[in-house]
């Protein structure tokens, strides 16, 4: 104590003087901190219109932007494509927080048709029916694929909130050379347009795999698909396979968009269990627990960790023979170093039961999950007018054909796909007939306000069943209960 008193005297500053000085300095610094915050965001007008898409789109950004200007976009409007997360659930999270926080950037979102409606229901997007020219609006509402437009519109008023960018339906990518070497004849048997059953497919795939040495041979997988515990499993890969077996989440397909709480939950039924058992056989073989003894093993349990890109990589790098994916993978596979372009083919996805043989309306036969993406405008954008101009340009045939040729993105206007010159879209031209078959057998995902809660439940119960942590019956009974409780909460 003596020491410290001593020290204080030596410094010789009174409490009063100390408080005055530090107080004044503190206030000055504080004010300086507050006053300097409007310098950096004052001139938004000169920046580019930002569109958050994904890494694939940034890969051919220049050709998209050139096509937009050719379609009549004012050259004073600069456009910049940002690489959003490739995985749909992660992108939804990013957009949810951007819109909830009222951020003004990006100006345009590329939203999955599987989750645009909840944003519309929350009135978080610009109503394009008020903004687009009547010409463009008519063109979109009359010429575009109807099921795509309906997932970009308000279910109650019918107003348009998004411009469909491309519809998406998966196909089976495969190695024609290996299949032919094993004694099959894809051309002669019309694989490109005539779907085969899962039974035929699996036996053929196992045979081709065997021919190449099986699991310990040249290929780690005969077949890869997406079975990770994520949105894509619930909306798409499982949905389409289950549908091809005659199963459904909510009974007849007329119930897909509601009414919530007033529709049957039909997951705990035989076609759904069969689908899970088949996938168990694919991953762990016919003798594994809860597997279907009639199906051979054509893959490994790695499937339960695969989303789109991780499942595509083995195929593109020449390590898988068959691969289920969206058409974006076509141009990438054409460029593969592991095989030649003429050794590569696509076909419609296999089916479980014949078309119409399913218990519910719309089920049975080859089924392709209807994906697809829309462009929507951020209501907090500083330049809504310019952003709408960009969307107007996207609704032009040349831009659609450019996106089709460069990225494999199917035009949202079916007549463009039908009339397109096969030579104008490069190698993709050879696959137009398969894409047409897939486009006719799409199964939409059940997007309602309840879907963001239901999709993770579906994915996680399926994941548990795929890993044999639960029997298919147990997992689906639990899922039924969970879906019912969500339905009754939101009814």
């Amino acid at each position, binding site marked *: 104590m003596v020491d410290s008193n001593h020290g204080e*005297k030596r410094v*010789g500053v*009174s*409490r*009063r*003087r100390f*408080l*005055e000085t530090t107080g004044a300095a*503190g206030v000055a610094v504080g004010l300086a901190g507050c006053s300097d915050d409007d310098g950096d965001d004052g001139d938004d007008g000169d920046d580019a219109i930002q569109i958050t898409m994904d890494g694939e789109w940034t890969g051919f950004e220049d050709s998209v932007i050139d096509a937009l200007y050719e379609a009549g976009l004012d050259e004073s409007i600069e456009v910049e494509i940002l690489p959003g997360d490739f995985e749909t*659930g992660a992108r*939804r*999270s990013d957009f*949810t*927080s951007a819109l*909830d926080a009222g951020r003004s950037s990006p100006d345009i979102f590329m939203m999955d048709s599987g989750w645009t409606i*909840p944003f519309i*229901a*929350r*009135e*978080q997007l610009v109503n394009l029916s008020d903004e687009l020219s009547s010409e463009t609006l008519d063109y979109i509402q009359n010429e575009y694929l109807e099921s795509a437009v309906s997932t970009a519109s308000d279910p109650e008023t019918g107003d348009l909130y998004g411009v469909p960018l491309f519809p998406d339906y998966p196909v089976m990518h495969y190695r024609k050379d290996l299949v032919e070497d094993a004694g099959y004849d894809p051309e002669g048997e019309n694989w490109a347009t005539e779907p085969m059953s899962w039974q035929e497919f699996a036996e053929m795939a196992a045979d081709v795999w065997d021919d190449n040495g099986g699991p310990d041979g040249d290929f*780690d997988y005969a077949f890869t698909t997406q079975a*990770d*515990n*994520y949105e894509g499993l619930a909306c798409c890969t499982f949905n389409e396979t289950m549908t091809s077996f005659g199963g459904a989440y909510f009974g007849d397909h007329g119930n897909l968009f509601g009414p919530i709480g007033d529709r049957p939950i039909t997951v705990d039924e035989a076609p759904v269990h069969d689908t899970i058992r088949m996938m168990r056989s694919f991953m762990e073989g016919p003798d594994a627990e809860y597997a279907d003894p009639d199906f051979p093993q054509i893959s*490994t*349990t*790695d499937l*339960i*960790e*695969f989303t789109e890109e*991780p499942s595509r*990589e*083995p195929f593109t790098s020449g390590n898988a023979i068959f691969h289920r994916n969206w058409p974006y993978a076509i141009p990438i596979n054409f460029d593969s170093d592991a095989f030649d372009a003429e050794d590569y083919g696509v076909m419609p996805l296999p089916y479980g039961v014949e078309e119409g043989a399913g218990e519910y309306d719309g089920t049975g036969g080859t089924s392709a999950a209807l994906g697809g993406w829309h462009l929507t405008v951020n209501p907090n954008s500083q330049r809504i007018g310019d952003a709408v101009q960009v969307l107007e340009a996207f609704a032009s045939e040349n831009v659609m054909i450019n996106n089709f040729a460069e990225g494999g993105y199917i035009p949202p206007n079916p007549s463009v796909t039908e009339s397109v010159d096969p030579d104008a879209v490069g190698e993709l031209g050879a696959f137009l007939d398969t894409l047409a078959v897939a486009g006719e057998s799409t199964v939409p995902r059940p997007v309602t*306000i309840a879907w*963001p*809660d*239901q999709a*993770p*439940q579906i*994915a*996680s*119960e399926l*994941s*548990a069943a795929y*890993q044999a*942590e*639960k029997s298919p019956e147990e997992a689906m009974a*639990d899922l039924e209960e*969970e879906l019912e*409780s*969500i339905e009754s*909460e*939101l009814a």
Partner: protein
Amino acid sequence: MSTDTRSDDGGFGLTSPLNWLETQSEEVYAYVLLAPAFLLLAVVAFYPLIETFRFSLLANELAAADPFGEFVGLDNYVALLTGNTPFTQQFVAVSLAEGFPFIQFDAPFLQQAIFVTLAFAIISVLFETTIGFGQALVLDKDFYGRRWVRVSIIIPWAIPIVIQGMIFFLMFNPTIGFGTDFMQWLGVFGSNPLSSSTDAFIIVLVADIWKTTAFMALLILAGLQSIDRGLYDVAKVSGASPWQRFKYITLPLVAPALLVAMLFRTMDAMRIYGLIDATAGCETVPSLTCLVIISLESSRRWATASAVAFLTAVVISGFVVAYLLALRNSNGGVA
């Protein structure tokens, strides 16, 4: 004390408080100086907490731009604790509980998140403290090459969490990782550790221990080095064995530093999120913070997210209080 007689600046009305201040004790003066900092701390720390609690009393609004609905009291908490909130992964805790002999709760929410979080916090802090103490004892000695040992212990702590998460993610990646084959050869893991809750929990646990043991070692080392070396000399002369020297000198004297270090680690471990997100993902190993993020971003249930966040704060503060009581006792014991 020499210039305080001038009073010509009294025009600001400060004269009387300043005069009052001059007459107060050192202690009061100290508190006056600290007051602005305390005020700031209160605003920064408590305002968000109170606001979170207020949000948690409102309804979830799924179909409007404003994510909050009307006042519903404790409904969100009731729904959480009775398992009526549509969270996923109910199977997680069950499969975990098969591997660990812990108590199981009936409510799914408690099963998954609190179970995972508490198990993680307790096991990780236990291992980190034990290993960190060992490392600190090694570092406290003088030996050739001590500098290099120090560096090698600290390196994991210097690696950013996401990078570290990616290291472990890639080690167990199905197409390029070597970890899965190795662990299967040992007979420990299944074929897809990052998709299996039990295996992924162990991966996250090991990753966290690998990284943060260094933090414990450093804090404990600081405690060790503040111990008066003369005490050991006296003990040696009196014939105390190494174990007795550790038990009667090192442990009691390092206890306050040890408890503070454990307190920090426990609080950190209870908030585990980044490491999980970068390795197995919240779907596989759901911690309390994971549930906040899931309900905030995926299902957009802000009120539920707030309730989970507030519950997390309550659970953490329970631990903090326990530590503070232990600290008070240990201080008393030493002094």
